[in-house]
């Protein structure tokens, strides 16, 4: 603050000659509605755990309600953005999204910290009584998921060059590869659970395995939903060279999910022995 001073002190003061571009953000019911929905979902999860009758039905209703509130909010933003500075709001949203991904990344960091701490403090790895995990299938799944990052990139590239059909095809391929990945993960889980008897409660190691792959799988699912939404909007022709913020967001999210998986693959499958 060494040399800060006001260029024109009088102008800063609230006067009657207000700046024509002055706007205050519109009031909105969505924040409180969504917060209530999220609170209800969390509380109902608790009631379902307690086994309260009808809690499951209420939970489903609350989830539905929360989704409606979220999309209502998203819709309001989309409408508002038509009257706002696109470049600036895109910059804001992108930056906010990156910070969000940073905090998401830190959740994974806590799980990796768990995994590596256990690994370096225990005498055997995998711990005694735990199977060594088969690598071939996950390796193929890894290739597919990493490949889908490239196909998504090509989809975005095609769209930015006006090749809308190619973009849609690449997008479909990306979604298909994502679904394949999830399917393979499901198969892997089934195999571990059913054949090897390696379940969530076998031991701390298996708990970590299922938590990490499960949490990641949930992220893949969310990513797929985002991609599906993007594809739907592509079909409607809503994107062009300038206006494709949600496409970018979905792209970053998908790359994030991919990068996390690469770390998971290395930590859980590739380097299993000390």
């Amino acid at each position, binding site marked *: *603050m060494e*040399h*800060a*001073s*006001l*260029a024109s002190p009088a*102008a*800063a*003061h*609230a006067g009657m000659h*207000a*700046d*024509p*571009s*002055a*706007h*205050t*953000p*519109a*009031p*909105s019911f969505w*924040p*409180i509605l*969504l*917060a*209530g929905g*999220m*609170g*209800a979902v*969390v*509380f109902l999860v*608790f009631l379902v755990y*307690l086994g309260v009758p009808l809690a499951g039905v209420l939970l489903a209703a609350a989830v539905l309600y929360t989704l409606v509130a979220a999309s209502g909010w998203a819709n*309001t933003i989309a409408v508002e953005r038509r*009257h706002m500075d696109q470049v*600036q709001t895109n*910059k*804001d949203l992108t*930056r*906010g999204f990156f*910070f969000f991904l940073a*905090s998401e*990344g*830190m*959740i994974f*960091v*806590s*799980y990796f*910290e*768990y995994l590596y*701490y*256990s690994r370096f403090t*225990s005498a055997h790895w995998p711990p005694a009584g735990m199977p060594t995990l088969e690598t071939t299938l996950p390796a193929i799944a890894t290739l597919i998921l990493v490949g889908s990052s490239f196909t998504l990139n090509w989809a975005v590239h095609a769209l930015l060059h006006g090749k809308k059909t190619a973009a849609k095809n690449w997008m479909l391929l990306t979604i298909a590869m994502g679904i394949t990945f999830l399917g393979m993960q499901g198969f892997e889980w089934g195999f571990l659970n059913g054949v090897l008897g390696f379940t*969530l*409660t076998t*031991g*701390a190691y298996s*708990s*970590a395995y299922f*938590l990490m792959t499960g949490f990641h799988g949930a992220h893949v699912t969310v990513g797929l939903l985002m991609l599906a939404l993007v594809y739907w909007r592509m079909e409607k022709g809503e994107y062009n060279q300038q206006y494709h913020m949600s496409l970018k967001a979905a792209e970053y999210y998908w790359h994030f999910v991919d990068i996390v998986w690469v770390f998971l693959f290395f930590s859980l499958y590739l380097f299993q022995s000390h």
Partner: protein
Amino acid sequence: MSTHVATAGVTQPRQYHGVLDWITTTDHKKIGIMYIVFALINGWLGGSLAGLIRLNLYNPDWHIVSPALYNQLMTMHATIMIFLTLMTAFAGFGNYLVPLMIGARDMAFPKLNAFAFWLLIPAAMMLYGSFFVVGGAAADGWWSYPPLSTAQFSAGHGEDLWILAVILLGISSIMGAINFLVTVIDMRAPGMNWMKLPLFVWSWVVTAWMLVLAVPVLSGALFMLLSDRWLNTGFYRPALGGDPLLYQHLFWFFGHPEVYIMILPGFGMISHIIPSMARKKLFGYKGMVMAIWSIGVIGFMVWAHHMFTAGISASARVFFSMASMFISVPTGVKIYSWLASVWGGVIRFTTAMKFALGFIFTFVLGGLSGLMLAVVPFDILVHNTYFVVAHFHYVLVGGSVMTLFAGTYYWFPKITGRMLSEKLGSWVFWLFFIGMNWVFMPMHLLGIEGMARRVANYRIEFRPLNQFISEGFIFMLLAGILFTYSIIKALREPKTAGDDPWQANDIELHLEWATSSPPPAYNFAEIPEVD
């Protein structure tokens, strides 16, 4: 206020009135006020629990509360004070002041801002509601260490509700933090470059970074704890090869940055109040910014000093002891810079300044007892005793709460357009200052004599000091009553404060004092340019 602002091409948004206005508002100032009121209410509730704790410890033979309830009170006192009072109070001041200070009309994401606030309500309902479920509220301390917090040893559902509520509060904090970061990065007024940023804004930038990076780790750790409780997983259960110590590592990886999250915005406030009241520019702005960043970075590397007696290796003790000591250097820089800012000034002893100088007195003590605790042999002698209780109350009450009082007295005119009574303020300050030292100073002694913390009962030898401490609580209670009364009284008076009641802008420019009190909905008629 905004009705006369013509907005070209935008249909004027619908305005609501009364309660609906508050429910639907996306105005950072109204959200800030709601945060501050929420914090004040929770401060009273959390403080009442502290009162019950002190009443119980006055004479354990009276059995004011059962040991089971004592553990609940102690756990909930900490949770409420940390998550619902201090964090929300600073979030409130941050919300109100940051856009004003950087010359913006609002936060980057006004709706997200409202969302982060409203998410506090279900979380608070779950926390308070948990007192009435079978088994009562969570009773495992705010650390909630497993195995005590696993289903085997804490079968009650208070613990489940506690975990869920804290995860919700974490989401709220992260959303708020992201909003602060984007706001400060993208929405500064023209000419407001980084090295002209007011220190309160700087402190919130670092705080927000710490929230974004630290809170998710807590969520991860709590998620694993919940899964141990509900799904019988083995993360923290030794029988399944899990390790309870790992929870401590994860918890304190969040927990120590959390301490700085609760004090850095307070540092920022003091850096505004002292120059304004001493009629002299802040000393060493660059050093202050560097100090905040050093605290933010080193704060992530000291977590295991909470675990010196948990059986970690000697080399880990050595590393974390050294790192913890390093963090006192930037803290010292801040103290000296504040003193140098006063040096040669002309001090006006307003209530805000009294609290600011009182803060320096108490925080020096809290900081240096922290330095002592980083000395491992001393830590072993007093770890988990009342010495530690004294230390962190000197930091959180002598630090954070004193800065919040100072900040309230300083910015109340801006927020409401009315002055708080200085006469009552003097009483509030002296009652609180004497009360807090009365209560927390003797706790150092209790700890050195060997009284463990978190006990509902103690050996008879510790009784005289405990009774002395409990008596001091009355002073803090009176200060709280007087403070609340003073606010209510001021709110009934006319708005006569004026734009800049402290003449802060005669010393150096602060944009929040360049607009009216309270500011109009759009903050600045024209976005100010700074050069």
